[in-house]
């Protein structure tokens, strides 16, 4: 059946596909199914492995049990992926490759893009599997971007890549941890000034805590309303969006405030460590920041799994690589489901392991780091930049550390992050090129 692929001649793009013959429909279905399976697998891997990093700060500081963390992660990863994952997905789907190159009669036909995206997905999934088997920490985002660039640049040609956009993405990988670090430094310094270094830290924690929750709620609501609700079918104007976000932020602050108010001061707990009660307040507020973290992670990382899927689906259903084609929301749904499935099957174990290793982080620190990281990641999702949540969180934790907040940090991690870029990008690209020729060989002969 492969042999009967229609000839790619000077047919007009729009009429080339969907074809009238049965074989084309079959092939189309096969592409979509393959993409769906690979994408689901990739999302599953993200849920199993990657989410643990986003949630581990909460588990490590004992603000959340692993079970609660899983429940929060499942809800908010899904919400983030489905409601705010569209923009980054668009970048992976058509922001890295030059879509003009892919059309009938052009340098490469649209189905070349299908093979490429399938190859990129399979490459990323394979590399992540190899890496996690060997205990190498790698970033999903870097792998998939490397893979997409790899097949396009080598499989098709250097002009198939939007190098300017790729440059911006690479820049965002440097900027996002830095930004999160500075933000975390500022947030933690304000926590010190307003709460910890005062005469009545417990009362001040209760007083100022909801303000931070408001900021987090507002930011996330704003991003969701502006970028997410359109594809769900709601279109809201700017002014209205702002008011809605204000309302949602205030709502979260009030709920948080009411929950905090119920914490009673226990003088006995403070005898051994004077800040036990204050930390309890932060521990409670971390339920909210952990939710924000999960939402942010979902909104950015779902694209790593479904971005290529969306590209394949778009080509397979329209036959062209249209710049303006809309993202089918079932693709994001697929990603969300995959992530939750990964969480349910493996996430528990990974989260417990990672959480147990970072117990030096107290809730007040985790709180500041999570706000900074979640804020940075959500803003990246807003601008469509695929960044690494884990790297961003590392930057945020370092920021807290520079405010003299953490007993001991291993700065060599920064070096290993750069090292992993050096390894992950070529590895993703290399595997992707390999799989690309493999798919081309299978489907085109």
């Amino acid at each position, binding site marked *: 059946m492969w042999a009967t692929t229609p000839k790619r001649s000077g047919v007009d793009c729009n009429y080339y596909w969907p074809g009238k013959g049965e074989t084309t429909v079959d092939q189309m279905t096969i592409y979509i199914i393959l993409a769906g399976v690979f994408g689901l697998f990739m999302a599953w891997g993200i849920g199993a492995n990657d989410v643990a990093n986003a949630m581990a700060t909460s588990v490590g500081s004992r603000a959340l049990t692993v079970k609660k963390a899983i429940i929060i992660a499942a809800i908010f990863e899904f919400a983030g992926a489905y409601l705010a994952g569209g923009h980054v997905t668009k970048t992976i789907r058509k922001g890295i490759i030059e879509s003009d190159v892919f059309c009938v009669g052009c340098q490469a036909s649209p189905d070349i893009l299908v093979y490429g995206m399938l190859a990129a997905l399979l490459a990323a999934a394979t590399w992540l599997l190899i890496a996690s088997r060997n205990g190498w920490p790698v970033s999903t985002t870097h792998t998939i971007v490397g893979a997409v660039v790899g097949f396009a640049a080598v499989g098709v040609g250097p002009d198939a890549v939007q190098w300017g956009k790729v440059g911006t993405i690479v820049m965002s990988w440097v900027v996002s941890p830095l930004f999160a670090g500075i933000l975390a430094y500022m947030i933690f310094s304000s926590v010190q000034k307003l709460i910890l*270094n005062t005469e009545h830290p417990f009362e001040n924690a209760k007083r100022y805590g909801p303000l931070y929750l408001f900021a987090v709620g507002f930011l996330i609501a704003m991003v969701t309303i502006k970028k997410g609700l359109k594809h769900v079918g709601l279109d809201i104007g700017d002014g209205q969006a702002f008011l809605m976000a204000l309302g949602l932020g205030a709502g979260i602050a009030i709920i948080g405030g009411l929950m905090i108010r119920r914490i009673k001061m226990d003088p006995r707990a403070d005898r051994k460590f004077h800040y036990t009660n204050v930390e309890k307040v932060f521990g409670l507020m971390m339920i909210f920041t952990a939710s924000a973290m999960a939402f942010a992670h979902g909104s950015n990382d779902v694209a790593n799994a479904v971005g290529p899927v969306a590209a394949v689906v778009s080509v397979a259903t329209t036959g062209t690589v249209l710049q303006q084609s809309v993202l089918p929301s079932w693709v994001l749904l697929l990603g969300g489901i995959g992530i939750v499935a990964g969480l349910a099957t493996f996430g528990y174990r990974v989260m417990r392991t990672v959480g147990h290793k970072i117990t030096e982080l107290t809730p007040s620190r985790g709180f500041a780091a999570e706000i900074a990281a979640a804020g940075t990641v959500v803003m990246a999702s807003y601008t469509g930049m695929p960044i690494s949540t884990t790297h961003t969180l590392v930057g945020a934790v370092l920021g807290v550390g520079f405010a003299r907040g953490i007993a001991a940090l291993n700065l060599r991690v920064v070096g290993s992050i750069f090292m992993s870029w050096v390894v992950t990008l070529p590895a993703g690209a290399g595997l992707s090129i390999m799989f690309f020729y493999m798919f081309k060989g299978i489907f085109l002969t």
Partner: protein
Amino acid sequence: MVANSYLTNLFGRSPIRPLQEHMSKVFGCVSQLKPLLQAMVDNDQNEVRRIQRIISQLENDADSMKKELRHHLPKGLFMPIDRRDLLELLLMQDNIANQAKDIAGLVVGRKMTVPKSMHNLFLQYGERSIDAVAKALDVINELDELLETGFRGLEVERVEDMIKELNAIESETDKCQVELRDMLFAMEDDLKPTDVMFTYRLLEWIGNVGDYAEKVGSRLQLLLAR
């Protein structure tokens, strides 16, 4: 799947808890000086020997804790307190235990006694020196609170007050030492010269315990002044 992430590698082991545990062990060791000196005054050689063994054991424990902590303080660690300051602090703490061990050794080895007229003040001197170490332990135990507040603000003031108290206790022991020396000097001619020599040394060593405790405090103060 092996969970290995940048986050797990990012967090080094906090040196604060081990430092506090070391100091707590040191205090445990030093507080044995009280029954030791009592037994010495009572001339109970068996008891002296028994306690000397305990002190020696505790000093050994503190020593291995010190080595353990040093091993877990690699150079690449980023800490809110200077690595060198921390190691010096540890060394000061360890000196206290070493001094206690030497005192016990001296008391056993030379079957030390002190003239009856000195007994009361001598025991008091010992006790106050131990008090100084207890205060130093309190100060070290504030390190986690200091970390919580980022080594700033009210907590720093609280710790500085504690260090002042520590210094006050130490100067009390100094006064005791001067007084005891005077008493010993007045009796010198009636005592065996070697005994006198070693009694001076014993007084000095007990004083060292308080001195080192004070140094723990002033080391920490330097660390706060940064």
